[in-house]
């Protein structure tokens, strides 16, 4: 059994090598890492909107101390210059402080965003002693919040994005990887040859799962180490690998099942799109934005994504029910894949 498993494992590695799977995974790893470290973090630190102030008396700028903070507010010399700046930068916010009551001037967008833009512009002009935009508010401030964990803002951003990209990689690329290998084998007809070999069918499925599982685990470990740092990764990696493993097995089985049930790669690409969208869009919307869908707690990928995120932030899932349900789901998927695999073997050449 062990010998046969090794034979299948070796063959699958060769198939993945010839399909350039590892090359694609490595390329993804490099792109994700560059994006997180040089793109996302800088983007998140960037100011939200440009704020232009027309303040002939200079009182508002002195009060906020903004004059000393280059780039946060831009002073303009006249009302005409303010209008010209806003017409060139339609997302910007203008403050006309020439009147006794300062007036917000901007191009209208959606109501909620406009309110946010106006508040942001005002926040840059109020006295620092009355307003805090610091990450750790002073005690007694009206805006104080409890700080959870010891992550710096940058580390938090890196972990968040690392989690999202790891999830996308496994849901989209890993799923595609196993399906493309199987479609190749289907096309070559060799799956049918395995039907008449002295080999347990479950071993064929298992070998493929292990290859993709190991590949995903290595990817997760490298992704975490490169983006969170080796020291930080050491603490969270075991829990992250558990969640990655669960997601990887589920996606590999889904990819396997689709490859067996669908006749060709063209049909698969449609199913792939539906599954990838179903698995990621509602999950990201609910987990990362204020949009909350009533049914999202029943979405299996939402639970797994939150498990992955929890693991990444040092609060792994410890509910036994979660792991029991995952195990049951994997068991059911395996049985379905086994049946589909058997059916495929009996098809005409």
């Amino acid at each position: 059994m062990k010998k046969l498993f090794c034979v299948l494992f070796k063959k699958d590695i060769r198939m993945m090598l010839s399909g350039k799977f590892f090359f694609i995974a490595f390329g993804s790893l490099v792109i994700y890492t560059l994006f997180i470290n040089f793109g996302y973090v800088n983007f998140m630190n960037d100011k939200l909107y440009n704020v232009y102030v027309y303040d002939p008396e200079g009182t508002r700028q002195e009060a906020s101390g903004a004059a000393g903070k280059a780039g946060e507010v831009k002073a303009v010399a006249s009302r005409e210059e303010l209008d010209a700046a806003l017409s060139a930068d339609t997302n910007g916010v203008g403050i006309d402080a020439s009147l006794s009551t300062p007036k917000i001037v901007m191009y209208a967008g959606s109501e909620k965003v406009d309110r946010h833009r106006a508040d942001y512009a005002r926040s840059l002009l109020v006295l620092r002693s009355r307003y805090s935009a610091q990450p750790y508010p002073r005690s007694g401030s009206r805006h104080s919040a409890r700080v959870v964990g010891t992550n710096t803002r940058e580390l938090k951003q890196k972990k968040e994005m690392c989690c999202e990209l790891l999830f996308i990689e496994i849901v989209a690329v890993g799923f595609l990887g196993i399906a493309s290998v199987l479609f190749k084998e289907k096309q070559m007809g060799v799956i049918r040859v395995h039907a008449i070999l002295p080999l347990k069918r479950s071993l064929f499925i298992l070998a493929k799962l292990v290859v993709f599982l190991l590949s995903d685990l290595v990817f997760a470990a490298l992704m975490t180490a490169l983006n969170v740092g080796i020291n930080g990764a050491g603490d969270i990696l075991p829990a992250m690998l558990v969640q990655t493993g669960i997601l990887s097995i589920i996606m590999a089985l889904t990819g396997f099942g689709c490859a067996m049930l669908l006749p060709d790669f063209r049909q698969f690409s449609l199913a792939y799109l539906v599954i990838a969208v179903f698995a990621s869009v509602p999950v990201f919307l609910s987990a990362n934005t204020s949009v909350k869908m009533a049914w999202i707690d029943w979405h299996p990928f939402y639970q797994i994504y939150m498990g992955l995120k929890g693991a990444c932030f040092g609060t792994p899932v410890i509910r036994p029910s979660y792991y029991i349900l995952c195990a049951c789901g994997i068991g059911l998927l395996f049985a379905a894949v086994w049946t589909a695999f058997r059916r495929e073997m009996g098809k005409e050449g």
Partner: protein
Amino acid sequence: MIEVRNLTFSYGKDKEALKGLDFTVEDGEIFGFLGPNGSGKSTTQKILTGILRGHGGHVSLFGQEISKAHTADFFEKIGVLFEYPYLYANLSALDNLRYFSSFYPSGQLRDIGEILEKLEFKPDFLKKPVASYSKGMRQRVSMARTLISNPRLLFLDEPTSGLDPSGAVLFRRIIEEERKKGTTVFLTTHNMLDADLLCDRVAFITNGNIAALDMPKRLKEKNSSRCVRIAYLYQGSRREKTVETTELERGIFFPHDEVISIHSEEPTLEDMFIQYTGRGLS
């Protein structure tokens, strides 16, 4: 070796593929299974090789009921050549054969080099990927995969398809050698020449039924007109005459100067197939 009694199979409620087949295949026999597309021959072969389950009736191989025979031990004893050469196109012939042979006990394996040499495989291609091979070369590697485990029972589906005439002769010789070793061969084919030259017995299958089962020679004899056609020269002109074989017992009785040829009017196996099944082999 193979015993089939009242074999039935349906792909759905109204898709009855096999309607009660009865036949046996003896040890060391080459048994031909002939039928047009959709007649049920692939379904029968899939049931016999353990790929399809859920059949009705009784099927036994190696003296054991097929439903209980789906074990590693069963698959170690059979070799199946599919109609198409199913191989890993990204691997070489050598790697394909190493891979497929690794599922069998090392004690029963044949030498890869020896078997490829027997199949006249071009050694230059040994380490090149199968994707670069011609159909004939792929068929040779496929045949090598089938024979490498030294099976006691061979299922061959269109073994000479894709081969040039010399390749077909080579394959027929190899199949004959296998039979001489005691291997039983279940041959599914459209090729009447293969069936005629190789098979001890043939079964004609059509619409899920066996229309006829006998030795090819006997099938032809049974339906022979017992006539011969003689081409001869007489008084400077070429003439032809069809006479009954009994008339020839005392020699050629009609006036002639020279006999050019004598053709038996015996039907071909294909004629027999059409006669029994009412369908051509397409």
